């Protein structure tokens, strides 16, 4: 009986997005991953790839305590740049929040929206990232609401975000958020798992510069 219950639960999890959407099969354009715009200089020596979930508590701890120091000391000086890849596995609102961030990117406000999401993060699926709240964040950032709503309601980035999740889990083998991959121009890379302190990032970045 437990096995049956678990099987039903697993199936419902896999199908939860399909149940709430009436999407057609993905086109070839939709079968590519999406990523954030680059934060910082395109020619920086080190790139930080953050893999995260907008509902992840530890991602917020890193956002609140470490991210700004990395920006002030490395990104603003042009030594390091950063991109964000979604791995929305924690709850149903994680996927919607990620889609909304790319709708904001269509209006060139990806990072502003990213900051807004982490600043307003609350409990997993507690309603803080509901469709209405996501639209209110867009309104606060002065985005074109018609364009944003159409993008979000039509689930324009549904398949791309899903592909990001699949790639993060299956191709890159990432099993927790946040996970950071730091890569330099020579191809050397290091991984930092979890919301580690600035001192760790400082040491790893210095070793890669």
């Amino acid at each position, binding site marked *: 009986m437990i096995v049956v219950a*678990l099987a039903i639960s*697993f199936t419902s999890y896999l199908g939860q997005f399909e149940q709430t959407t009436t999407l057609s099969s993905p086109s070839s354009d939709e079968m590519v991953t999406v990523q954030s715009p680059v934060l910082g200089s395109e020619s920086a020596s080190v790139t930080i790839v953050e893999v995260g979930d907008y509902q992840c508590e530890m991602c917020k701890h890193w956002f*609140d*305590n470490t991210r700004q120091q990395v920006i002030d000391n490395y990104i603003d000086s042009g030594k390091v740049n950063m991109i964000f890849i979604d791995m929305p596995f*924690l709850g149903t609102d994680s996927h919607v929040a990620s889609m909304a961030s790319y709708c904001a990117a269509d209006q060139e406000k990806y990072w502003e929206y990213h900051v807004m999401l982490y600043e307003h993060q609350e409990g*997993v*699926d507690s309603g803080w990232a509901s469709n209405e709240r996501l639209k209110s964040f867009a309104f606060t950032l002065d985005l074109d609401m018609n364009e944003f709503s159409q993008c979000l309601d039509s689930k324009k980035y549904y398949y791309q975000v899903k592909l990001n999740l699949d790639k993060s889990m299956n191709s890159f083998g990432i099993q927790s958020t946040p996970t950071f991959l730091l890569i330099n121009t020579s191809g050397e890379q290091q991984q930092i798992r*979890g*919301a*580690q302190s600035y001192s760790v990032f400082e040491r790893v970045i210095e070793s890669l510069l």
Partner: protein
Amino acid sequence: MENSIKFVFSNYRYVVLCAITTLALFFPLSIISEYLYLEPYFIFSIYDETAFNFSLIVILSVVAGIVVSMNVFRVRLVKDAKKIGSSITGTVIGASAGACSCGPIGFSVITTFGTAGSIASSFLTNYEIPLRLLSIGILLLVLFTTMKSLSLECKINQ
């Protein structure tokens, strides 16, 4: 009743057992709660907003260490293992409360059990502090009853 603590820990073997139990809980709990990282460096990462949670892990580990060693003493003295179950319950609640849903344990639970795993993981994360306090409460209750029964049993045995 407090004499029972002095009586048990006057034997250095129970002090060592207490220290081992405390450390054996503290390090795994700190790792699964993502306060201690082993890679790329061995480092504690505790922020202002997580300091209270971390202090609960320290308290939980120390109390569990005292409870386990006193119960081992009691089991050897009177061959009664009734209170061991309660101390295990308290420890398990405290340990599971800390398994951060963003971490590898939460990830495994969510990807294996789907929605049910996601709900359970969210519950444990959202109610981490009350669950840890409950766990410490259970352990303190077990400690109190162990001290009480030890003082009675020791008098009887005398």
